[in-house]
């Protein structure tokens, strides 16, 4: 089976500015794919080209196995970052209108709209209007409008923006359920912990160019430094091979940066054999996506500046 999205060397220029510069990637069927990048990186332009809202200057895009067509639209759900709905239309009527535009029959769309509103804890507002809802509720209605027609491919831009933790969890569970039902999900998102938790693979765009691409775990490993995270008691800086010690915000965990001649196994053996240390947990340090994002988007200098030196830790 072909990939859900295949993008080959697309470029888009606006005058002198290159919004998207020779980007290629693929989104596999059934995966959650995260599209990352700082503001203005070219994510929205890329999404709009995938959705055929604008055309690339060069390159090719295949969506669900073929070049984009009007029929393709009916198989895609899209939640844009700039989003809103008609404010004065009853919710079921509004959602069923979107559903019919996506190819559903009116009766089927109405039933599905009512069902989705129930699932999103909005059952009491079926006859209500968007203008009567809170921002979080409106966001959930937006999400319902995106998935009402059970899309094969879901492209969602900042799906958790404006949602409290409870509603975030509801939407997240619906995304997982859609994936389990076979849908492919492309997520543009800034909450890196959500990417770590949800995404299978990612693409990071910076200044229109592809800077990170691959499995989430593999990318994190790629950026992993030679370090371990431990919690417990002892003089960590005195361990052989430790170059730098960095406690986390809670003070309970400490990251030990090792020199090139020392492996995590050696550190673990020394800790186990030395009576001067009491260890509650030990793990190989893998950088958080947030750090990788800042490092790539903001430059290595910012990362370096944010890390305290060994001397600072020791003092």
């Amino acid at each position: 089976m072909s990939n859900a999205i295949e993008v080959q060397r697309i470029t888009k220029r606006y005058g002198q500015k290159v919004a998207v510069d020779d980007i290629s990637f693929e989104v596999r069927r059934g995966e959650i794919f995260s599209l990352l990048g700082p503001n203005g990186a070219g994510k929205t332009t890329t999404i709009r080209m995938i959705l055929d809202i604008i055309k690339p200057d060069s390159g090719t895009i295949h969506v669900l196995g073929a070049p984009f067509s009007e029929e393709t639209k009916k198989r895609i759900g899209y939640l844009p970052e700039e989003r809103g709905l008609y404010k004065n239309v009853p919710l079921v009527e509004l959602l069923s209108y979107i559903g019919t535009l996506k190819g559903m029959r009116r009766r089927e769309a109405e039933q599905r709209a009512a069902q989705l509103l129930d699932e999103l804890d909005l059952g009491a507002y079926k006859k209500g209007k968007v203008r009567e809802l809170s921002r979080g509720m409106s966001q959930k209605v937006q999400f319902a409008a995106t998935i009402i027609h059970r899309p094969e491919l879901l492209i969602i831009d900042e799906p958790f923006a404006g949602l409290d933790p409870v509603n975030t969890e509801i939407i997240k569970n619906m995304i997982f359920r859609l994936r389990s039902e076979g849908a492919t999900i492309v997520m543009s998102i800034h909450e890196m912990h959500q990417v770590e938790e949800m995404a299978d693979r990612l693409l990071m765009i910076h200044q229109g160019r592809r800077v990170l691409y691959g499995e989430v775990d593999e990318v994190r490993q790629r950026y992993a430094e030679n370090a371990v995270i431990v919690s417990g008691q002892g003089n960590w800086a005195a361990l052989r091979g430790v170059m730098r010690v960095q406690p986390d915000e809670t003070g309970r965990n400490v990251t030990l940066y090792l020199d090139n001649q020392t492996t995590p196994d050696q550190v673990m053996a020394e800790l186990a054999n030395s009576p001067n240390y009491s260890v509650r947990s030990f793990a190989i340090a893998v950088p958080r996506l947030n750090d990788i994002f800042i490092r790539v988007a903001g430059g290595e200098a910012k990362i370096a500046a944010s890390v305290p030196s060994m001397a600072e830790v020791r003092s």
Partner: protein
Amino acid sequence: MRALWLVFHFETMRQLKRLGYLLVTFGVPIAAVALFLLFRVLGSSAAEAGTGGRGDSPLGANVLGEGAISEDSPLAQARPMGFVDHSGLLGNVPTLIRFSSEEAALNALKNGEISAYYVIAADYLQTGKVEAYFQRFNLGSLSDVAIRQALLSALIRQADLAPQKLALLQARTLDVTPIAIGEVASQATENTNLLLANVFAILLLFTALTTSGYLLQSLTEERENRAAEVLLSALRPRDLLFGKFLAMNVLALLQTTLWIGTALFLLSQAAGILPDLSGIALRADQVIVLVIYFVLGYLFFSSVYAIISALTANFREGTQLSVVVILPAMLPFYLSVAFINTPNEALPVLLSMIPITAPLAMTLRASVTSVPLGEVLLSAALLSLTIVACVWLAARLFRVNMLLSGRPPKLRDVLRLVSERA
């Protein structure tokens, strides 16, 4: 096509449920009928009071006093009419006053002794021509029953039943040509034409602007509530544009039809009160041109407003920008006197060819004269091409502005996005 229909259906039903639309559409006719009934009730009361004051005197020439009734009042028609017979056919006519010369009749008319007089031409038997002179031209008051009866009687009395006389008896006993005297009468005739022309012009403008207002509101809505991109992922911009375009036009047409229907009904009920309008008649060619330009004008204004709505971020900006179109479009209206007096001169013809002024210019001209076919075809062709171009541009701009998501478009954005592949 299905998407266009869905948009059309959704927009139509949504607007039909809006209180504002319902109030304007049905409230105006209801208010008009209510006002009419109120005036009628008040009028009846006043008439009853007036009749009581005058007693039971019949409305005749020798009974009604001058000055008791205004010149414009329908009751002024109760004054007698006169006639001058150059043909020698007529004897005394019971309900008409005979004058020996036109000069005497004219003096009587000017003095208010009579409301009108007929002049039977010397060659009446050959031409059937009778002229009617009025102090104030008034189509509704033209009742030629008395003179018609008198002439018919005279012809029958002759009874030689020559073919020409038979024809006159059967079809055209007389062909009355109304002629107004002096400046007052001339002005009255002009006013009638002006009134007719202005009624059509205002009707066109009013309908077009009402529609355009709805359209402007509707087409800026998605950008104001940020629903644009959601909808663009489901349908083509042109389906959204045309669906809304059709829906708003149907709604405006419904509203206009209801209003015009109510107005016509009220006019028919008020025929006795407004006799000036009862005799207005247009030739078929005039009607055709008026209908063509009503439709074209309507589409032109709608398409221009579609462009305006695509160029602006919200309804308020659109309303402000629309002045740029409305002012030049109304130019013929400001020059309507020139259109009435010299409808086929250079200026009216020129303005009939310029698309933005053509709808009103042609409406004004066609109300008062027969516009040459060549000019109609050329003007209509230019206007139609402009409409097509406007709709095309509106669709492109609409797509552009949808992508800008409520941000006011800069000229370079517009040029860039319009020229790029859709």
